[in-house]
């Protein structure tokens, strides 16, 4: 198990290094002069020089890469050109919106998807299954921003249970969670639909396996065989999807953040891209990549917890 975890960890570090090189190359090397790109065509020569100096563009490439990486490792992400503020602080503010939102949405989607998937699988071909599958079909088809607007219409404008947007900060955790609830639901439902379908089909595969027949021959009821033997085996593909979804929820909440006017990472990226603030873009993208790789690492470890065959594979 430790061997396995170590190997996954080595692969995590390698992925991070490769990702950082790719991001660095795309942002700072390939398009030519980032300073000129950021300032546009009418830039003054002295402003350009000042920006070049600030970005360290006059240094050789390896030095720039090294400075960028060591800076990030020590928590210094540089200063935003447009906001004139440290990027680290900007990210820190936003991540406390985006990360809880993503986790919230993930928990919701799992809480919806697992029971729905298991229920549908246990009633394959019966009305219950067909109803759940129909609902997930809809969930997959409906865009989440549209869904978000419907939620706002019903729960914020008509019922006035939630506010229509904005984020009050974490001083009052209840209010903060409340303001994240509608966005989390809007993000979670389409994901839950996908997850439920994966859970169902994975379970159905498992229910056809020989060891389910063995379990039934031992005297387990259909339901017991499903819960004790099929569910854990069915988790592996489901974990894969959960890992992928988390990455999506973290970075892909951009539209939902717009709809609910949340100061999250998605908005930050969107604004910095519009403002051509490459310093911010570079750091935020690297951070997202880091989180995604970290989540994949966690999923890999979860595989090993679920499946003993992976633990012993050396």
């Amino acid at each position, binding site marked *: 198990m430790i*061997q396995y975890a*170590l*190997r996954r960890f*080595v692969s995590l570090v390698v992925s991070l290094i490769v990702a950082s090189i790719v991001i660095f190359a795309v942002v700072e090397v390939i398009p030519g002069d980032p300073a000129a790109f950021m300032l546009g065509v009418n830039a003054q020569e002295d402003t350009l020089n000042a920006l070049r100096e600030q970005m360290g563009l006059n240094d050789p490439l390896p030095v720039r890469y090294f400075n960028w990486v060591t800076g990030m490792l020590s928590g210094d992400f540089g200063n935003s050109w447009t906001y004139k503020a440290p990027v680290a602080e900007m990210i820190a503010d936003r991540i406390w919106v985006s990360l809880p939102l993503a986790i919230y949405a993930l928990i919701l989607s799992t809480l919806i998807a697992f029971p729905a998937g298991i229920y549908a699988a246990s009633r394959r071909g019966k009305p219950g299954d067909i109803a759940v599958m129909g609902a997930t079909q809809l969930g997959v088809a409906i865009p989440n921003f549209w869904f978000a607007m419907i939620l706002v219409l019903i729960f914020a404008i008509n019922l006035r249970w939630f506010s229509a947007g904005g984020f009050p900060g974490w001083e009052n955790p209840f209010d903060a969670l409340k303001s994240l609830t509608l966005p989390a639901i809007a993000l979670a439902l389409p994901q839950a639909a996908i997850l439920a379908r994966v859970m169902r089909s994975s379970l159905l595969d498992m229910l056809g*396996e*020989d*060891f389910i*027949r*063995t*379990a*039934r*021959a*031992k*005297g*387990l*009821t259909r339901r017991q065989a499903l819960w*004790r*033997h099929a569910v*854990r*085996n069915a988790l592996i593909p489901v974990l894969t999807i959960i890992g992928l979804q988390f990455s999506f929820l973290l970075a892909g909440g951009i539209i939902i953040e717009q709809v609910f006017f949340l100061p999250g990472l998605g908005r930050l990226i969107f604004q910095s891209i519009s403002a051509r603030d490459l310093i911010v873009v570079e750091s935020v993208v690297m951070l997202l990549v880091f989180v995604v790789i970290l989540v994949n690492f966690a999923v890999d470890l979860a595989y090993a917890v*679920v*499946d*003993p*065959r992976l633990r*012993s*594979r*050396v």
Partner: protein
Amino acid sequence: MSLLEIKNLNLSIYRTPILRDVSLSVDPGQIVAITGESGSGKSLTALSVMGLTPQGTQMTGKVLLDGKDILQTSEPELCKMRGQDVGMVFQEPMTALNPVQTIGAQVAETIRMHQKTGKRAALAQAEEMFRKVGLEIPSSRYPHELSGGQRQRVVIAMAVALRPKLLIADEPTTALDVTTQARILTLLKTLVQEFQMGLLMITHDLAVVSDIADQIVVMQEGQVVEQGQTQHLLQHMSHPYTKALFAASGHQVDLPQTPVQKPLLRVSGVCRDYPIGRTSVFGARKSFRALHEVSFDLGRGERVGLVGESGCGKSTLTRAILGLEDVQEGSIALDGQPVFAGKRPNLDVRRQMQVVFQDPYSSFNPRHRVGRLITEPFHLLQAPPEGIARQQVIEQALTDVGLHPTDAGKFIHEFSGGQRQRIAIARALIIKPELVVFDEAVSALDVSVRAQVLDLLAELCRKRPFTYLFISHDLSVVRSVTDRVLVMKEGRIVEQGPTESVFTNPQHSYTQALISAAPRLPELA
């Protein structure tokens, strides 16, 4: 009163009748074997006793277990009965266990389902049962850490944990090697005696049946055609199907003698290593040697058998001979030309070799017609026949293997297993290769079909000199269709020689063990 009594059981699935008027009985301490070819309804008969028939099944008649009719029993009652009164062992030990639970937990589950026992007590009981079935490994192991034979012992332990009155075993040894099979059969016999259980065993292998059963039930197309005491039935079988079945099982092929000429295939000092993962993160990669200095010659016109148990390196050797993988040491040459030239297979040699695989169902693309399937090897030729010549070659190839030329226009699903294997042989022979490798080519076939395919081989040998390497775990088949035999164990050839002398007078202890473990058909009157 019998322990199990099936009376006039009729079974249909979605109105398609499967079983007709099946009647049989099992007494305590008695072993009853149901035998017959695939599709005869053996397995469904067994599942009906468990109450585990597939959806859409309708049954009439009576299935009395200890006087209680299973067909009239409710599902919750059946759940209480399964595992407690009836245990079941399945064919495929590799997939019959849950991969994510320890073997101890899985056996303990049977106990805890039916008795109010604590986790620890149940586990202790499970461990006791492991000793009983001859399994001496910790109960904290997972199924993937066990061999096929060990897994089957776990499945048996699970089935007999509560000492059920009746044990049902569906092809319990079919997926196992002969030596393992012999040990599992002995175990089943001992358990039946010790627990005074009834054993209803399903197997297609008549040698196993004659060896173990007290009573034989022969089924064909959902009906019992004959049943009786083993000795009596073997001496006085009356139904033509029973006779045909036994005749086909012991079928001897009339193999023509052909003069063996100079060596065609020469395998010398071949070693094959497979890399296995590192054992520590920064350690060196290790490798597993699957073939140890394997050397042998195959003469033109010679028919050589290769036998050995699973994992002995048969398949690795086949792949090396076919040039699908390179070897680490030694050389393989056909007619003096290496099969592997540089980094890729030598196409000149590949043209001279063809292979017939085990599974007649998955070795064909289902979307192509037979005419296209059997001409697949043409891509090895520089100038494959075209137009009318191509048609003639296809017709000839199909006729040679006993099929009709018009079969070229059909799809593969329109053929039975035996016919598919004929098509596979036609595909191998269509470019007139020097050497054909049969890799367990008849292992998946029913006995009667197997006999026909083996006869086909003999017939092909009569038409022209035919050199082949026949790989099989089935000793009786190898004995009947080969001139010479190689015995492999753990990547080494431990014995080789003329087939008859190896079988009648084996020298190596492993060959002796293999031959004595193989169940034999009794001499029939």
